[in-house]
């Protein structure tokens, strides 16, 4: 069974890979993922704030303290000191040396700035491709949707300007006109989109009256959102598509591929079950395709997208209407 797929211009043995997460921080874990069959390794994101914050924080706290007669500084000043992103670049090199599959580095930011220059350093460090995560939480009422998109496109253009690498953009589902934005990305020279990033969710501590940041790992319930937008984008875009979020087992992956994904990223399931789970899903995928007599993976990809599925209305408003009417109140309402 030929499971190969083309993603971001990379020819991969199959579509399954670990998504951006701290898994790739550990070389041993990376090797185990490769052993489990991962077709590529996606590294965790290096954040705009991390790049700038690390530098500014170090400048402020390690090198910026009061000058006094007895001391101009409070820390040793050595040439071998490397700020955070440099260790990220070293990790790219280390992973490249450790595995044979492509290594996809990841940047995360939403405002144009010097941090986009790190794309070039990632390329120089040996990244096979770059995933740019546009993780944007708009809070400014004076900035309209067009301005948000324009800002994000400026970021994309800056990153694109720094590298010749294949470039994927990881998006959130919160766009007024996602297909239009994806087309703008395509025009900006992007090679693919990853659907979707997941927001860290705030929570409120009732006793201390403080807001805490929480992160819940994804569950399969998050898959349908991805399926819908993969299916909508798949017919018209020439970009590579990747599903990220909600894929826990082979059936999830198969659905994502059917909706149009060229690659399928997994994080939560691998964090919970270990790297070998990727091999299990891969085996199940192969078995399913064989049992269902597909000639190759390519036959499957996009087969259930908006243009090719039997009932497109279910990806559109019709689905919404039908669902609402299918809800029934719980027994609690009837007591």
């Amino acid at each position, binding site marked *: 069974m030929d499971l190969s797929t083309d993603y971001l211009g990379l020819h991969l043995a199959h579509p399954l890979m670990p998504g951006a997460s701290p898994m790739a921080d550990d070389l041993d874990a990376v090797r185990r993922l490769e052993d489990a069959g991962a077709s590529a390794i996606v590294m965790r994101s290096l954040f705009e704030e991390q790049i700038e914050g690390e530098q500014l924080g170090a400048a402020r706290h390690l090198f910026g303290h009061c000058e006094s007669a007895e001391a*101009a500084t409070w820390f*040793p000043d050595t040439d071998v000191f490397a700020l955070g992103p440099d260790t990220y670049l070293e990790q790219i090199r280390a992973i490249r040396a450790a595995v044979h599959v492509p290594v996809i580095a990841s940047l995360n930011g939403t405002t144009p700035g010097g941090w986009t220059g790190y794309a070039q350093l990632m390329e120089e460090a040996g990244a096979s491709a770059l995933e740019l995560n546009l993780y944007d939480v708009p809070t400014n009422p004076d900035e309209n949707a067009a301005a948000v998109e324009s800002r994000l496109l400026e970021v994309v253009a800056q990153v694109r300007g720094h590298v010749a690498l294949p470039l994927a953009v990881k998006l959130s589902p919160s766009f007024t006109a996602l297909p239009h934005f994806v087309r703008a990305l395509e025009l900006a020279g992007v090679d693919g989109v990853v659907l979707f990033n997941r927001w860290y969710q705030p929570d409120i501590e009732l006793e201390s009256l403080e807001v805490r940041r929480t992160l819940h790992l994804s569950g399969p319930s998050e898959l349908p959102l991805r399926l819908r937008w993969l299916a909508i984008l798949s017919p018209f875009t020439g970009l590579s598509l990747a599903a990220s979020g909600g894929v826990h087992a082979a059936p999830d992956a198969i659905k994502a591929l059917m909706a149009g994904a060229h690659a399928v990223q997994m994080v939560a399931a691998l964090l919970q079950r270990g790297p070998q789970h990727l091999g299990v899903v891969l085996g199940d995928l192969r078995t399913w395709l064989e049992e269902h007599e597909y000639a190759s993976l390519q036959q499957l990809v996009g087969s259930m997208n908006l243009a090719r599925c039997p009932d497109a209305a279910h990806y559109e408003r019709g689905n919404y209407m039908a669902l609402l009417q299918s809800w029934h109140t719980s027994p609690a309402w009837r007591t």
Partner: protein
Amino acid sequence: MAHTLDGSEAVASVAHRLSEVIAIYPITPASTMAELCDEWSSAGRANVWGQVPSVMEMQSEAGAAGTLHGALQAGSLATTFTASQGLLLMIPNLYKIAGELSACTIHVAARTLATHALSIFGDHSDVMACRQTGFAMLCSGSVQEAHDLAAIAHAASLEARLPFLHFFDGFRTSHEVHDVELLTDAQLLALVSADAIAAHRARALSSDRPVIRGTAQNPDTFFQAREAANAWYERCPGVVRDVMDRYAALTGRRYGLFDYTGHAQAERVIVLMGSGAGAASEMVDWLVERGEKVGLLQVRLYRPFDGAAFVAALPASTTSIAVLDRTKEPGAPADPLHLDVLMALHEALASRGAGGVRDDALAAGSGPRAMPRVVGGRYGLSSKEFTPAMVKAVFDELRESAPRNHFTLGIVDDVTHRSLPWDGELDIEAPDVTRAVFYGLGSDGTVGANKNTIKIVGDETALHAQGYFVYDSKKSGSTTVSHLRFSPRPIRSTYLVQRAGFIAVSQPQLVERLDVLQLAAPGAVFLLNTPHPADEVWATLPAEVAETIAERGLRFVVIDAHGVSVEVGLPGRVSTVMQGCFFALSGVLPRDQALAAARRAIEKTFRKRGEEVIRRNIAALELAEERMHEVAVPRPGAALHRRAPPVPVEAPEFVQRVTAQMIAGRGDLLPVSAFPVDGTWPSGTSRWEQRAIAREIPQWDSSICIQCNKCALVCPHAVIRPKVVAAADLAGAPEGFVTAPWKNAAHPDLLYTLQVAPDDCTGCGLCVAVCPAKDKSAPKHKAIDMAPVGPLRERQRAAWDFFRDHLPEGDRALARLDNKGSQLLQPLFEFSGACAGCGETPYLKLLSQLFGDRLMIANATGCSSIYGGNLPTTPWSTDRHGRGPAWANSLFEDNAEFGLGMRLALDANAARARTLLHRLAPRLPGVLVDGLLGADQAADAGIDEQRRRVVALRAQLQGLLPAGAPGAAHGSGAADTLDAAAARELLAAADHLVRHTVWIVGGDGWAYDIGFGGLDHLFSTTADVNVLVLDTEVYSNTGGQQSKATPIGAAAKFASAGRAVGKKDLGLLAMGYGHVYVASVALLARDAQTVQALLEAESHAGPSLVIAHSPCIAHGYDLSQSPVQQKLAVESGVWPVYRFDPRRLAAGEAPLKLESGPIRARVADYMKGEGRFRAVELRDKERYATLVAQAERHVLERRAFHEQLAGLRLSIAATAPGTPLRPDVPSPAAGS
């Protein structure tokens, strides 16, 4: 090619490249040399032989000297760096090293020795205390010379087979930034004799060819053996001269044992050594140009003093000599160099023609034929300015028929009238020397930016560049003054700029406090950072500034540098903006060239800081020119305000007369008569210095406040205080003075108020961080929030004055002494100059609240002695009775012993008073005597009662005095006379019947390292003393060098790669004695426990130790977050919290109570919040991971050990008297 660096780096560059073993210990101003060597070795930089020198920090300078001695015995090329008292600690080993003729070089940034006061600044009193040790002594007078003579010292030492002490003036040379020619490795290799090194190694101790050294000798032999080394001393000057000649051939830079400059037929000659030669040579040239026959003889090889060579170096025409010493030897016939010169002249001239002088040294025609008149003078103690005008005063004096001898220079001595007057207006600098003065704050980077500017000009142009930096004594909001010179000729001006063509002020409030235009030359540029635009700024200026601008025709330029710094995302870092303006305005370089060079310098300087930092600094530089505006100068208007006086008019006379001048930066002008003769100063002067450095201060919302007093408890500067008052107390309160009903059911009628001292707050925000009271409808708003000070200042000033002066302080005899109640007591430690957010000072403030009225403090040198005792103003204050902490600092290393001495004296005093009382008992009421002798003074109430008894006793004693004394009764007979004498004595000693408490305070550098021996000894006694260790886990005061309290995984100076060994468990060592009370506390995490520990320690009738964990800026994070970090430190087990009270044994309890609570946080999470750990991770991730794992294990192991100790019981009941106590360890199942 020129390199621009400071004297410390110039010396370290040689020392590191010519050494194999470097033993170090921090002490200002020598620390930088040690830090550089440590950093270089840590980064793998090799010496000229390709080997990375081994750098070892020791526990003291005595330890460093011992290590040096050992390394030399084993054949290494070894060095060390030190100054001041540190050098004195080395003296015993200096004798040994010299006595054994071991070759080595010690580099000393010469610093004042502590006498009536400590001073970190420069003079020769330390090195002069070593001239008897047998070390050769070589003195440098400039940054270039320090580099050159460092190399000459290393080379000459090996060839002469004598140890060398190479010294140069602390700060003036060690910290001056200057362009210098650096030696290449090849030049160093060519200079140092390989044969001499081989011989040095061949003399090493070796078990392959064993010898014995360090024998004990007896009257029969010691003397002769001591004389046996004479030949080496006689040979040494010649060796040095040879090396100097070789050096000249290698580098073109020529030095002599004594270097003369001036008129070839000079009649009047000044002799001195060190940096003063720069200023002196300038004046000599100036006078010679004007036809005067004057000269300067600079001493370089001071020991062995080659008298013949000295005399030969003088012009034959010399008729009078002034010898200038930079040290003071009270009681000596003259200061040391003066004596040496007299002796040299006497020997040379008295024996001339009698064969007493070596022919080779006295070439025909050189040196005076007849004994010149020789006078001596003293100058420059503690880096006192030494200017060409003062040199001229000396030459003028020498012209007198009877010039004054033993004079002083640079001060006004109106007591013993020894000082020479000088012309303060005389300025001989050439007009083509660009001179600029920058006023800034320690926190705004002004010094750093100016060092950069000097490097840019020094490294990239043909101009010579010099920078020197003056700091005030505060750590928070400290003022810096940068003095910059750029000249087409080499710069010899070893004194501050006296007339500047460019004055920059980086903080607008400085114009209100300092005469910033004092040094402005006519027509100079005055650049001011101010938020006010050019057309409005004039009205905001003090009239004094406006008048000077107009009178001197200054070009006045303003820029909102703070606004630019915010705009580019580097808020507060205004220095780069000011630097951009300097390049645009000063003309020292063509503008485009200057900016391009500045951009390159930023890229180079901030390369290690990352792209974003570079980008933002360049943006600041570029915006500077765009945003600065020239101000059209109108005639000064009458409406302008005058500067406020340095202290309020109600301040005491001494503060008005002396302290105020120092605050205003005019301390140099104070005459000798202004000063206490013995170093005794009044307490509590910090309240008179209103620095107004905070941009934001806390604002109280009484409607939300729960009156927990945590804000007051944590405030490092005692600027936020609560009081509980009656409504009647509020009569006369200023408008808007806020109170709230006191939340205390027992006193429904009392009111609570919380007040901020707006001019003393540093704006650290700790009070807001700990405030637990949040507004229910908007929890962002707390009972205290930080708010811009501008609109609040006037109202809060009035409120603070009323609060401080009119509302009664809490009554300590009635107060509940817990974390909350203690804060209603008056702090007797206030407004120190400690860093904003300091973690140490809240402990001291608490100590002063709990025991301040009976507190004696022995304070080790360190941060706490600097913010505790650095003039002009000091924070230890007094209560309304005039009682308060009595504070003294002896040294760094001896503090435990110092405090023990205090205790012994107090006990002796008390015993004497009690003896007198016993003796007079028949004449006194029995109840009173019994009460006085049997008083329970464990707590405040008992002490209060005893004080009342003492008052009653005094009244009774008056009655025992002979007739004539006020209120005295008549008496007769010998017994009466004796009783009267006893009564008189007891009157003076009666206060000793009241219990006084001794606290020995110091940092971890003292307690864990240099003072540990004394501390350990203290624990072995039964003396009732208390030790408070303010444990910041580094040597904070000297800039963050590691101590044995530094935890695993933390980067510190001398531990660049992160400390690999666990923190010493000082508490455990003290517990080992069994009778010592020991507590480990963390105020911001366990405040109630901290208060309890201090109370228990004080009440324990033996030695007590409280280890107070203290956040510090050397931990590398925003200290307003220190409550969070302390909590993590405690919850992760990194900072153990416990109390070990030997008294619990008697109750059958385990003496140790662990109070950290269960481990609820990860060590790694604690570590990731602080820059000191993060720095290690950034440097080496894998090593960091290993260190984190080790730290976690260390915490668990220590915790397990403490838990086992906490389970220990002693089976007292089963023990008969005299039977040794046996530990009884219950089984774990017993659940102890």
